[in-house]
């Protein structure tokens, strides 16, 4: 076994140098030169200050904002320093109770709105930071947001459409609406 000791230690050291320092630093260097905006978190900057990231959702529960996916991060929703899903199983009573509470909150914020609620609006995302909702979930909220902002629904729908992305290359993934960007755009209208 002693024959193997020197090559084992030296191979580990040399490969650590190569794959643990040279490789990640090379990627960092190239990324910072080629794609600095993305490499640093796709942050949205207004007046020289970072006000969010277009890839990380934020929590909303006011009537005038579109709400994103429910988030199960602790201790508060959309805690982007500790990403997490809920991990509740499909037959867990806690899941059913949580969905009921979310339905109740949506209905309380917009009484009289009776359409069925799209499932992504009442189920927690995998990361707890999902920046998107589906177009149906945005459409469901247009009525409430328009009323809270004293805008007509067509105007709100138009802003939603501007922030709706189709499938990538027309085939990959799902159509989606970026909630933070949509809410920022609505605020900017005033």
């Amino acid at each position, binding site marked *: *076994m002693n024959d*193997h*000791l020197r*090559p*084992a230690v*030296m*191979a*580990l050291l*040399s*490969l*650590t140098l*190569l*794959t*643990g320092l040279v490789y*990640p630093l090379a*990627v*960092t260097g190239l*990324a*910072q030169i080629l794609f600095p905006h*993305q490499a*640093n*978190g796709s*942050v949205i900057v207004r007046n020289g200050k970072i006000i969010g990231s277009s890839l*990380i959702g*934020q*929590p*909303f*529960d006011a009537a005038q904002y579109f709400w994103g996916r429910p988030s199960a991060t602790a*201790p508060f929703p959309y805690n982007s320093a500790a*990403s*997490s*899903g809920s*991990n*509740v*199983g*499909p*037959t867990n009573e806690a*899941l*059913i109770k949580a969905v009921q509470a979310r339905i109740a909150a949506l209905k309380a914020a917009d009484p009289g709105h009776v359409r*069925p*609620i*799209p*499932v*992504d609006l009442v189920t927690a995302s*995998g*990361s*707890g*930071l*999902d920046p998107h*909702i589906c*177009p*149906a979930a945005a459409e469901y909220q247009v009525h409430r947001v328009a009323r809270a902002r004293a805008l007509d629904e067509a105007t709100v729908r138009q802003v939603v459409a501007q922030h709706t992305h189709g*499938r990538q*290359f027309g085939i990959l*993934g*799902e*159509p*989606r609406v970026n909630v*933070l960007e949509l809410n*920022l755009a609505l605020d900017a209208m005033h």
Partner: protein
Amino acid sequence: MTLNGGLQIGLYFLALLALVKPLGWYMARVYEGQVMGLDRVLGSIERWIYRICGVRAGEEMDWRAYAGAMLMFNAAGLLALYALQRLQGLLPLNPQGFGAVPPDLAFNTAASFTTNTNWQAYGGETTMSYLTNMLGMTVQNFVSAATGMAILVALIRGFARRSDTTIGNFWVDLVRSVLYILVPLSLILALVLVSQGAVQTLSSYHAVPLLQSLRYERPVADASGQPALDDKGQPKREQAAVSEQILAVGPAASQVAIKHLGTNGGGFFNANSAHPFESPSPLTDFLLILAETLLAAAFTYTFGKMVGDTRQGWAILAAMLIVLGIFVVGAYQAESAGNPRIAALGVNQQASDLQPGGNMEGKEVRFGLARSALFATATTATSTGAVNSMHDSFTPLGGLVPLVMMQFGEVILGGVGSGLYGMLIFAIIAVFVAGLMVGRTPEYLGKKIESYEMKMASLLILIMPMIVLGFTAVAVVTDSGQSSIFNPGPHGFSEVLYAYSSMGNNNGSAFGGLNANTSFYNLTGGVVMLMARFWLAILTLALAGSLARKKLVPSGPGTLPTHTPLFVVLLIGTVVLVGVLTFLPALALGPIVEHLLMVKG
């Protein structure tokens, strides 16, 4: 299920098939020491490593020396990763000031990353410094994958050679795997990930004000950090407000690229590839699924090329992809059907072009159901174990799919290297079973399969179920095992079965509700991962040594051809039968009974 979902899955299979031959051909050249272009650029680094290691590249090893070198290298890696975690508080590149990782967790994590498992009992962005991620996790992602590749190549040489005592040089196979295959592919993939939005920076986390500050309730902790209780014995809660968000960033893309290419799976962030900074777009999701299956699939061609008959490789790949395809569709169907209890509340789960529908708990909107089902199946068919959605929240049958994929023994593509050497063991069992049926001595690729080979093969397929079921049984009857369970009922049993199926097959994904960061799971899990990886690796190398010594038997009229559809069916039958017979009783107690409970309402 939608037409678009079917197209996305079909597109993945086409892309994978298109890459098998060119990459497999290239890898055969790498391992046969032939000119392949990159050696001109990187040859000097390769020779420098041999020089400082004192290794003569042309010197071959018998199986014992090969196994000894492999074990010594991995032991050094295990110790280094343990030490790095314990000392990270004193080391640089730690902008969040994380302290030493506790001993049991550090042992579990060191065992996990050296065995190519990447089970994570910690959350990345709340535990590990940038330096630990770079020098520890990223390095082991490369070298644990390369270890698997080296063992596979040794076994292939065992088949390809005749009357030979040696099976190659471990150091050469290791270094060439890293230098000529893993590093170049990772570099390209990492940059594509960044271009889409994956983060790659050494700066500290950013504080960001929230557009709308939020009031929420949080549990109150008493002086000792335990949840405080009110008069009725309920946990006390208090109002709190939050007005900013801390964006966790870091050198993620470089680690994510190799975590998929090397079928490792350990996320930079806790939410793994569901996290938008690891996998920001549907394209990155597509590439990550492709990457985690790419090398394992291409190795079937490398194998065929090195044994001199590429049809042998295609037959094995066909068996793998047929099983994978069937289970992907199964998972997609189960998740599309959704959760009847949520449907009963008046929620719309119908998939359309305006919404993903189905069971969206634990899933991301940009990926939807088809991508999540494909990812879950591919990540467990290979030994990757990364996730883009939370498996614990899948429907019972949707969650059964990843469980079964692991319980097949990680041979449906499997880990880079380890998957194919596992599958070749099943091929040996398959020809043995066929030989029994017609009363002939079994042979595979011109090598007679005799009692020594059958003993090794039987040990190889029996050890894993013993470990998995044995430790599951211990965990579910002890307090320390039970107390970590999160979901009630049969799902709680599934969490434990999933944990040991994952660690016992070096996969690394989890039903994440299980609180795995306890001494019990950290220590038993660490032992399980080490046994699963190295016991099998040693037996495989013993088998390689025995096969290399054998003479070639010319094929005769009694030889079972192993490149035909008949053999593909036989191979699938062997894998499925062994897996199902072993695990069906356990599955019946977990996901199957839960499914019946769910549909009954």
